[in-house]
């Protein structure tokens, strides 16, 4: 299985022209690896924007799509990995375009690593802004196979991390939950690309030790200097449902104003920033 991941990724990165980039000579610590991964996956740039097309395909091959725009702004004013300064609160604004009947629906998050996140949902057809109670983050994100936590990022402190192996291309990290009762998995394994620190494949194992959920990075582009996942999939082996997310119009450091992450802008979308 690892072989195929490597082959697939080797070609992937050739295409992205990333092999030429710098190579880390000294082996980093587990802590350095997971922080760098957390950074490239969720914190690159001061803020960011992407249009996402999500395709959910069920066991019977029936699919449905959703399109939305994600805006994200980081609280910490730095991208520095030193002392993990990059890490901190984040705000996210997810604006739905399609299907037409959920157009203008908004999902907003104030993420507080270490605490519980604040979440809001705006349902235009009911003219309703609704707070979603802070409970389980491992619930479906709008009916897809991605969990809310996959989209917002899981707190590093929630898991114990262990470097299981290293090969030419990957660091293989095994993550075991600190509080096993709070999650449905017993552990998950990440294949982290050595140069970009992007998680290329993540495998979740259930309480009986069986693989049941797989996240794959299908395409990577370097955008404004940041290695960026532009296509990824999540497959649930139990429901045999699969979701593919394709990112387009990705941009970083747009200077998004803080005020858009407020209740007022749920009802009146910041059109200018959503194009």
């Amino acid at each position, binding site marked *: 299985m690892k072989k195929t991941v490597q082959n697939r990724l080797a070609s992937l990165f050739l295409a992205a022209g990333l092999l030429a980039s710098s190579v880390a000579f000294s082996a980093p610590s587990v802590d350095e690896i997971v922080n760098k991964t957390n950074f490239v996956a969720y914190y690159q740039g001061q803020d960011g924007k992407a249009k996402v097309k999500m395709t959910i395909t069920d066991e019977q091959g029936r699919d*449905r799509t959703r399109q939305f725009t994600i805006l994200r702004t980081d609280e910490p004013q730095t991208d520095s990995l030193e002392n993990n300064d990059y890490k901190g609160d984040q705000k996210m604004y997810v604006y739905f375009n399609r*299907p*037409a009947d959920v*157009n203008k629906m908004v999902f907003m998050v104030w993420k507080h690593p270490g605490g519980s996140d604040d979440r809001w949902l705006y349902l235009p057809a009911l003219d*309703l802004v609704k707070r*979603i109670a802070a409970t389980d983050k491992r619930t479906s*994100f709008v009916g897809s196979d991605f969990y*809310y936590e996959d989209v917002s990022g899981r707190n590093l402190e929630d898991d114990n991390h262990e470097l299981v192996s290293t090969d030419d291309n990957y660091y293989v990290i095994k993550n075991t939950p600190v509080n096993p009762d709070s999650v449905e998995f017993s552990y998950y394994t990440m294949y982290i690309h050595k140069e970009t620190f992007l998680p290329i494949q993540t495998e979740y194992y259930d309480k009986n030790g069986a693989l049941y959920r797989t996240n794959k990075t299908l395409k990577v582009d370097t955008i404004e200097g940041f290695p960026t996942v532009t296509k990824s999939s999540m497959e649930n082996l139990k429901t045999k449902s699969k979701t593919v997310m394709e990112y387009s119009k990705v941009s970083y450091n747009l200077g998004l104003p803080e005020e858009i992450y407020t209740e007022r802008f749920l009802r009146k979308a910041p059109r200018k920033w959503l194009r």
Partner: protein
Amino acid sequence: MNSPSDNDINPLFKFSIDKPNIISRMMWVSTLLIIMLAVLPSIWPKTFSSLEPLTVDTDPENMLSEDEPVRLFHNRMKEEFSLNDIVVVGVVNDKTENGVYTPETLSRVHELTEFAKTLSWPDKENPEQQAGVVEVDMIAPSSVENIEQGGLGSVKFSWLMPEPPKTEEEALAVRDRAMNIPFLKGTLVSEDGKAIALYLPLTDKHLSYDVREKLLGKIAEWGKTEESYYITGLPVAEDTFGVEMFYQMAISAPLAMLVIFLLLWWFFKKLIFVVSPMLVAMACALSTMGLLIISGNTIHIMSSMIPIFIMPIAVLDAIHILSDFFDRYAEIKDRRKTLIEVMKTLFAPMLFTTLTTIAGFASLALTPIPPVQVFGVFVAIGVFFAWFWTITFVPAFIMFIPEEKLAAFANHEGGEIDEERTAMGHFLKLAGNGIYKQFRLVLIMTMVAAGIAAYGIGKININDNPIKWFGPDHSIRVADRVMNSHFAGTYMAYLELEQSAEYAANNTDNSTQLARMKSEITKLNDEEIPNAEPVFKQLAEKIQQIKNTVPDSTSKQDSLLTLYLDEQLDNASDEEFDAWDQAQIFIDSERQRNELFKQPELLEYMSKMQNYLTSLDVVGKANSLADVVKTVHRELLLGDQKEFRIPETSNAVAQTLITYQNSHRPQDLWHFVTPDYRKSSLWLQLKSGDNQDMSAVEEALAGWVKKNPPPMGIEANWFGLTHINVAWQEKMVNGMIESFSGSFLVVLAMMVLLFRSLLWGILAMIPLTVTVGLIYGVIGLIGKDYDMPVAVLSALSLGLAVDYAIHFLARARETVKEMGSWKSAVGPMFGEPARAISRNVIVVGFGFLPLLAAPLVPYQTVGIFIAAILFLAGVASLMILPAMITLLERFLFPGQTAKG
């Protein structure tokens, strides 16, 4: 060989008395060969892969053939709505005040749920797939979603019971949460608070036995608990049925054999005479079952009864031969000559009784129920075997017995004279005289009986219920009763709703699209979206142009339009971008007009339908997409009960549903609606699995739909096992009427042919008609449901009941010819012929009674009713026929001078 009479005897029979060794070897070899062909592939399936192994089939669905539209639709719907067969675990605690809601009981429920999640393993045939319990669709307190109010007016998604409660209050909170969710109330939790039901869907229903065993093992670990556990569900019932079916075959069939053996021994005294009919019966039963397996047919509830039908029928003719042989041997004192005499008398009636029996069973092949067809055809084959070996092996076996032994036996027994001194002989003699003298009384009694029968038949209640195939005290029935008393019902029926193809084809009119476009422009202008008007105008032109380019294919039109809109949006200037974005959304919403089950109008209709259905007595509860929408809508609006309703717009419905899908189990929605929102399923929980109850529900709904025509050309179609049962029952009732009337005519024709007289032919049919009428009359009068085994009995009685009439009439004709008149023939007729018939009634009738020892109700029904049919047919033949002959003597024996 040098006897003159040899020339006109049947060559097959002649061969068997000339070469008894060859015949007996033939029977052994052919039977063993068939058994080997059947057994080898069952024991070593790999070595003998080209042969068919034994397969057991306990699936009531197979009452319909695989390609039956009802079944195809059922299977397609099960797949489209991802519905699996389910094992249900009932947990009942009525000892405590709070029922099952105690920390102790709930923690065991939690433990059992976690254990059930582990009951999944790689599929043997396809190791990539998992087989066992479908964890993601399990319904249990710790695995279902709860949506409720969180703090600060927020909405909260969580597991209903994330962990076992530690206190009484926490336990009761689980109850209160579940009771607030319509989907769970009456399904997961009983309304009386005493019971919880866990639903464990299976990848394949044939795994239910394993799953049940493992669950029982887990429950046993706890020892005595305050709550009781009941494991039920259709797959469990089916597997249990399979086990008991073998018990039936292993116990009832040999028991029948033993009873027949003992009765024969009692009648014929000498063991040596009893051996040959028993060997014939065994050979026939084994070869027929062997052939059944070799031909790839399954052991089904019907086919498992084949041996018990064949064995009594197989000894029938042998009894006639042996009876007659003894009567004559005392005079002739030569086994060969005696056999030839016996065969001269009996060959034709035996052939015809065999043919009529075969016709009766073979007629079942005309019914549209595959297991009944297989049953009929193979019993017919068995009856043929029985005839063949009876006219060959039974005489051959007598040829093996030394003349001295036979002589000693005949002398010892004293033949005819002694026979008449027995109680039965005495009684028959008296009865014969009485009937002759009082023939009018007999005929009046017959008329009265016919009247009662007609009245009873009018009261027949057509009904069946596979769960009731188990006896009332069986653990399956007990579980069924307990569960239905606590919950809204364990029998599931499903309604599929979709737009009729006809309506869809006639309503593709897009003429109103322009009007909708206009109002959209007005709306966008109000929202100050610049350039809405020119952009939408451009769009309208493009739509027309595309329609002209590819007028025939709407899918091509759609993809061209999508492509166009993507291009426009990509290249739009800042001033026009928003307008093009809105244009794309407009087209998307036009397409969504096909997503019917987001339309409030339709959901309201479903709600109304659901309310009507739950108003029916037998319907405990209905679940539908409308409930999901209403529940989520209520929780979004502060849990206010007033908001338990369908919102006003389809967008609001869509947004409610997408909110619902933010849960742990987004796939739950697809049990109620397909992802294209074109088909929806409505679940009914029925308190009874009786076909008549399901039929009543179907009829009631059809009437309601007629009065309340559905919007948008929606049609409602039933599926689910309860519906399949109704479908095969309907087919069976009609099929049985056809097959019975068909075989009745065939048998009548055979009788006319045999007696070369229409009058005699009709006469032969009278006892059987009275018998069948009375049996069904009694069934109607005592209120026994007309179910599958009862239906099959008609064919059986047809085949068997006519036998006695054939024997009686054939002998009557012969005797009248010998004695000169019917009056003087009555005495002899109530001698040997009447005794042979009576013996037959007793041996065969009692032979079926061991079926009463079977644990399954259909076998008991068959046992009782066949015994009753044989008894009645015997009595009817011995009473009605002589009375009728007395009445019609002038017409029946026209050559004869007046009564003397």
